[in-house]
């Protein structure tokens, strides 16, 4: 078990199974097919991301360095939140990027969805956490990986 301290972007608590992307998470490429065709598990559609391609994202603690790609990214995340297809939380090793921040904030302000977001957890976080581990975000924003 290890704990990591980051910065809370969207507050909230959460306990979920980790899904880890070591490369940049391409939001559009990851979500577009699943949202368009109602994939209940919201499987990742990004063929360029071998870590998580075809793996379910719904309800997972998505651990990533940052998001990349199209500027529809925030809109895609907002849509996922609005229809209840979002990850349980998003945990960034780096400072959050503008597209992910947009999506997380739009989801927080304009929907009832819960998707806590913590950034700046450090490279060590992404080195330690592995897909399938359990991740908990506490009241204080501290992330526990076990």
């Amino acid at each position, binding site marked *: 078990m290890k704990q990591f301290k980051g910065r809370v*972007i969207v507050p909230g608590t959460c306990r979920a199974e980790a899904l880890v992307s070591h490369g*940049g998470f*391409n939001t*559009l*490429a990851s979500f*577009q*097919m699943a*949202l*368009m*065709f*109602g994939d209940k598990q919201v499987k990742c559609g990004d*063929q*360029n991301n071998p870590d998580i391609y075809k793996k379910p994202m719904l309800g997972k603690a998505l651990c990533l360095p*940052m*998001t*990349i*790609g*199209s*500027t*529809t*990214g*925030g*809109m*895609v995340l*907002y*849509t996922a939140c*609005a*229809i209840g297809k979002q990850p349980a939380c998003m945990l960034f090793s780096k400072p*959050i*990027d*503008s*597209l992910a*921040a*947009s*999506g997380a*904030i*739009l989801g*927080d*302000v*304009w*929907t009832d969805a819960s998707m806590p977001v913590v950034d700046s957890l450090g490279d060590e976080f992404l080195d330690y956490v592995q897909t399938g581990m359990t991740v908990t975000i506490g009241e204080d924003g501290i992330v526990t990986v076990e």
Partner: protein
Amino acid sequence: MKLTPEQQAMLDGAQGETMAKVVKTLVMYGDAFGAERMVPITSKCGHTVISFGLKAIQPVYDLYDQLIAAGLTSGQKFTADPRPIDPAVPSSLLEDIVFKKIMYTHQEKYEQQLKKLGITKDEDYTCTCYLDQVGNKPEKGDVLSWAESSAVVYANSVLGARCNRNSGIIELMGSVAGFVPEFGLLTDEGRKATWVIEVKCKEKPEAQLLGSAIGMKVMEEVPYVKGLDQWLGTELNEEACSYLKDFGAATASNGAVGLYHIEGLTPEAKEQGEALIKEGAQVYVIDDEELTRVKASYPIVWKNPDAAPALCFVGCPHLSLTQMEDWCERITEKLRERGLQRITVPTVFTASPAVIREAEKGTIAARLRSLGVIISYICPLMYMNNPLCKKKPVITCSNKLRTYTSARFYTEGEILDIITGKEGTK
């Protein structure tokens, strides 16, 4: 963040609950990046990335209905990304059903929303809004609230405007409020380079391949590129701008680049030179072997990797008029060499309606059509989103299209050979 009394009043609900939520969104957005204030948008027009009436994003249209119902429209007119459907582009009966009955069922309704929110005019659907023919071309130093990764990186890098990589919806909220949080690429510090790219290729590198390599390496950081002047020169002429358009789109889609500097060419690099490079910047050397390695790393996701191409897309981002002319000459020459009259693979050239109109005025459009090329204003990415395309062997020289779809990437030279029937190509 310190707000002006007027901005604070908006946040407190003086202009209604919906405007308060718009401002709250922008304040949270700025807070996430340590913005200390809001700055007014100074560009004449905005640009939105959301141009499609896609059933799957109904919540977006619901949100826009809230804005319209509250009387909130964009304070500035705006252009939009390309339309997702064009009858000129070949599609099967089944694909047409998927496009019209399942995917883009909300297109007409959404375009009505855009009219209410403030789109410039009915033909202004393109990702290359900054081209002269379209006319949404910001001035150097203008503050923008745009989204569309390829347009943002072009506006920042080639035009010297200031815009963050805003998301769809956020860009419209900036235009509605009239201000955006000041952080990142809106600041002098945020525009400094943290990577130096040394291009040491023997020949002019393919724009979309070079951009891909840089994007994947630097991700969201700012690169300062050396060594391109020997091919691009030191003036931003039509040819250089077209190259940088495609280069930038690849850096933005294969990574998350919002600004690059080209030594001796782009405005800030010309003015400030290496003073733009931050101390301790990392170095990435790119030679021909590195580009070969990058290209070989692209996954091929066709069902049958040996399939003959069924369709080719050229123009993501949309082609400039110069590029259409150049392709026309090159195809004509290749077909003449091979004793052919028309191309051998169905090929779609995509460009903005305004550029197509210019091409129609001269001989280029007619000549391209006589060679068998289809000309369209469509967004090829939105066409390829059709799941039936996964079974379709589509080729492209766009690294953006490759990244988001099952289209297979070839260099422009390879595409030229394939579509003009060179023996040994498929």
